[in-house]
C-alpha cells in the first residue's frame, strides 16, 4: 500500500475533475447515457487507474496486469474517460461514445476495446466473473500478487446472482479479490431503500464471510487506505462499501435519482433547464463550484 501525500491527493483530485469534464462532454455528444454513476465514481476510477492498478495502457494484454471488472456496465462513460486519460486511447475518441462504428459501445464490449476485461450491462454478473478470474489465477499461481477488482453498483445488489457469487467468494476465501460497491443510494426507479432496501448492508456482506469496510468514496486517501487494507486481508475476499454522492461534482445534479439514466440536456429541469444543463455542469466542474475537492486535510 502506498501512502498518498497531500500533493498526490491534490493531483488525483485534479485528474478526477478533468475526467468528470470528459464524462459530461461525452454524454452531451452522445445524447444518451448515464450521468449520476459515472460522476460519482470518478474519484475511485481515477485512484484505481492512476495509483492502484498494476497495468500498462500501452500493453493492455500484459499478462501480469491486475484485472478490473466493471459489473454495472451502464457507468462505462467513466471507464472510457479514465482509460483515455490514462493513455489507453486518444481522449478525442471519447466523443464517439454510443455512435455507430465506435469502440465505445453503449455498454462495454470486451472484444472492441483493449483494456476492457469483460462485456457488461446486464446487471449482477460481474462479481461472478471476477470470482472466476481470481479462482483461476489462484490455481495457476497460489502466491499471486495480482488482484482482481470488481466494481459494483448498489442497485444491482438486488440481483440474486450477486448473492450466489457472494456465497462462492466466501467459500473459496479469495484473498486476491477486492470488490468495491458504489453506494450512491439511487437506482433508476428511485432511492435504493425505497425500491428494495439493502440495509443493513455491511452486516449482510459480513455474514457471507467477506471482509467489509465502509469508506467515503470521494476521499482519495480513505479509499486508497481501504484498498491497501483489503490487499492485506489474506483469508477472505474483501468488499469496500464506498459511500458516494450521485452526480458528485455538479452540485445542481447531486443526490437526485432522476439523473441516474439521463445525460445533461435531458435531465430533470427543476434546478437547471435542459438547454443549460451541459454548460452549467462544465462550468461547475471548471470552477470547482460543485466542491469536488474533499477537504479532510485542509
Amino acid at each position, binding site marked *: 500500500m502506498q501512502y498518498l501525500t497531500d500533493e498526490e491527493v491534490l493531483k488525483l483530485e485534479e485528474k478526477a475533475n478533468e475526467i468528470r469534464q470528459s464524462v459530461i462532454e461525452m454524454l452531451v455528444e452522445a445524447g444518451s447515457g448515464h450521468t449520476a454513476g459515472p460522476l460519482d465514481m470518478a474519484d475511485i476510477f481515477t485512484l484505481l487507474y492512476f495509483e492502484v492498478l498494476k497495468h500498462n495502457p500501452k500493453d493492455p494484454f500484459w499478462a501480469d496486469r491486475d*484485472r478490473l*471488472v466493471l459489473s454495472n456496465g451502464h457507468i462505462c462513460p467513466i471507464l472510457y474517460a479514465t482509460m483515455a486519460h490514462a493513455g489507453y486511447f486518444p481522449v478525442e475518441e471519447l466523443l464517439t461514445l454510443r455512435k455507430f462504428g465506435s469502440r465505445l459501445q453503449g455498454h462495454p*464490449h*470486451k*472484444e472492441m476495446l483493449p483494456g476492457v*476485461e*469483460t*462485456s*457488461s*450491462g*446486464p446487471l*449482477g*454478473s*460481474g462479481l*461472478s*466473473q*471476477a*470470482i*472466476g*478470474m*481470481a*479462482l*483461476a*489465477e489462484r*490455481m*495457476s499461481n497460489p502466491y499471486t500478487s495480482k488482484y482482481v477488482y470488481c466494481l459494483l453498483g448498489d442497485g444491482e445488489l438486488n440481483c*440474486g*446472482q450477486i448473492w*450466489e*457469487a457472494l*456465497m*462462492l467468494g466466501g*467459500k473459496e476465501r479469495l484473498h486476491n479479490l477486492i470488490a468495491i460497491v458504489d453506494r450512491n443510494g439511487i437506482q433508476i426507479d428511485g432511492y435504493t431503500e425505497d425500491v428494495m432496501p439493502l440495509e443493513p448492508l455491511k452486516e449482510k456482506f459480513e455474514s457471507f464471510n467477506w471482509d467489509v469496510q465502509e469508506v467515503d468514496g470521494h476521499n482519495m486517501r480513505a479509499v486508497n487506505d481501504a484498498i491497501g487494507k483489503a490487499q492485506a486481508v489474506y483469508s477472505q475476499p474483501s468488499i469496500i462499501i464506498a459511500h458516494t454522492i450521485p452526480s458528485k461534482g455538479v452540485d445542481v445534479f447531486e443526490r437526485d435519482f432522476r439523473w441516474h439514466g439521463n445525460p445533461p440536456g435531458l435531465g430533470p429541469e427543476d434546478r437547471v433547464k435542459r438547454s443549460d444543463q451541459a454548460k452549467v455542469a462544465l462550468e461547475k466542474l471548471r470552477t470547482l463550484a460543485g466542491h469536488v475537492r474533499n477537504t479532510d486535510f485542509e
Partner: protein
Amino acid sequence: MEISQHLNPNLFSQTVDAVPNRNGFGDGLKEAGEQDARIVALCADLTASTKVDVFAKAFPERYFQVGIGEQSMASVASGMAAMGKIPFIASYAMFSPGRSWEQVRTTIAYNGSNVKIIGAHSGISVGPDGATHQAIEDMGIMRIIPRMTVIAPCDVHEAKRATIAAAKHVGPVYIRIARENTPVITTPGTPFEIGKAEVYLKRDKQHVKKVGIIGTGTILYHALVAGKKLNEGGIGASVMNIGTVKPLDTEAVRAFADEHDVIVTVEEHQIMGGLGSAIAEFLSGVRPTRILRLGINDQFGQSGTMEELLSHYGIDNESIVEKTREFLG
C-alpha cells in the same frame, strides 16, 4: 438397404446394449482433462448425475462445486476462461442453460469465452420427473445465440467423442446429454467431427418412394429402427445422424434432400427452434422441400416412462413409421 460400417453391428438386435450417453460425457471429460491441464469443471450440486464426478475424482483440484447457482456458474466460468482455463459447466439442461440463458449469452458468447456448457437430463426421456425437469427447448435457446455450437450426441460413444472435440474447439459449445439407458448406436471407432453429419442408413433403391429421415440425440435410435421398418415395408428410407445441430452440415443436408422426395426430422425437443427448424430454415432457401418435423408440438411434457412418453408424443419408431407413411400419402 445399406447400413454404415460405423454402426454398432448389434444395433437392430433385441439384445442391443443400452447405456446412458451421459456416461460418455463423464469419460470424455476425464480423458480431455488428462490431455489438457487447462480444463476445469464446475457443477451446481448435480455432480454425480451429470457424471462430472468422474473428472472430480481424477482432478479434485480442478473441480469446483458452486452450489445451486447456475447463473453464477456460467459467469464464473467466463471469468476463468478469461484467465486461460477451459471450463466445463454442468447441470440439468432445464437449469443450465435454462435458467442461466442471459449469463450464457452475455458473459460467455458475447465475450467470446471458451466455455463448454453441458445440459444433462435433456428431453422428455428423463420421464417420471415430469415437465419441470424435461428440457425440450434447450437447443432452440442455444441455437439462436451467435457463436454457439450446439451438439446432441446420439449415444455414449458419440457423447465421449463430442466432449473431447468440444474441449479442443475454441469457443462456446453446448452439449445436451440424457439420463436414461439408450441403445449404443455407434462404435468406439465411429468418427466424430463438429459440424459433420453422416448417413447411417441408405435407402433400398428398389422402392419408388424415397424419404430421408434426419435425427439428432438419443432418439436417433428410433429414427433408425423406423427407417429399417420402412425399407422392409416398401418405402425407401435413409437415416442421417446430425450430431451437430449448429453449425449445420449444410452440404450433407442439401445432398440428402436431393436424393429423397421428402425429409422427416426427429428430435426429443420442441419442433420449433431445434433440429427441424434448422433443417427447414436451410432447405427453404436453397432447395424447397416438404419436411415433416417430429418432436414435441408446442406442449409441455409430463410424468411417465421413457417408452410411454416417446409413444405419446409421437417420436417412437412406430409413430415415425406411421406419420411418415401418412406424410408420403
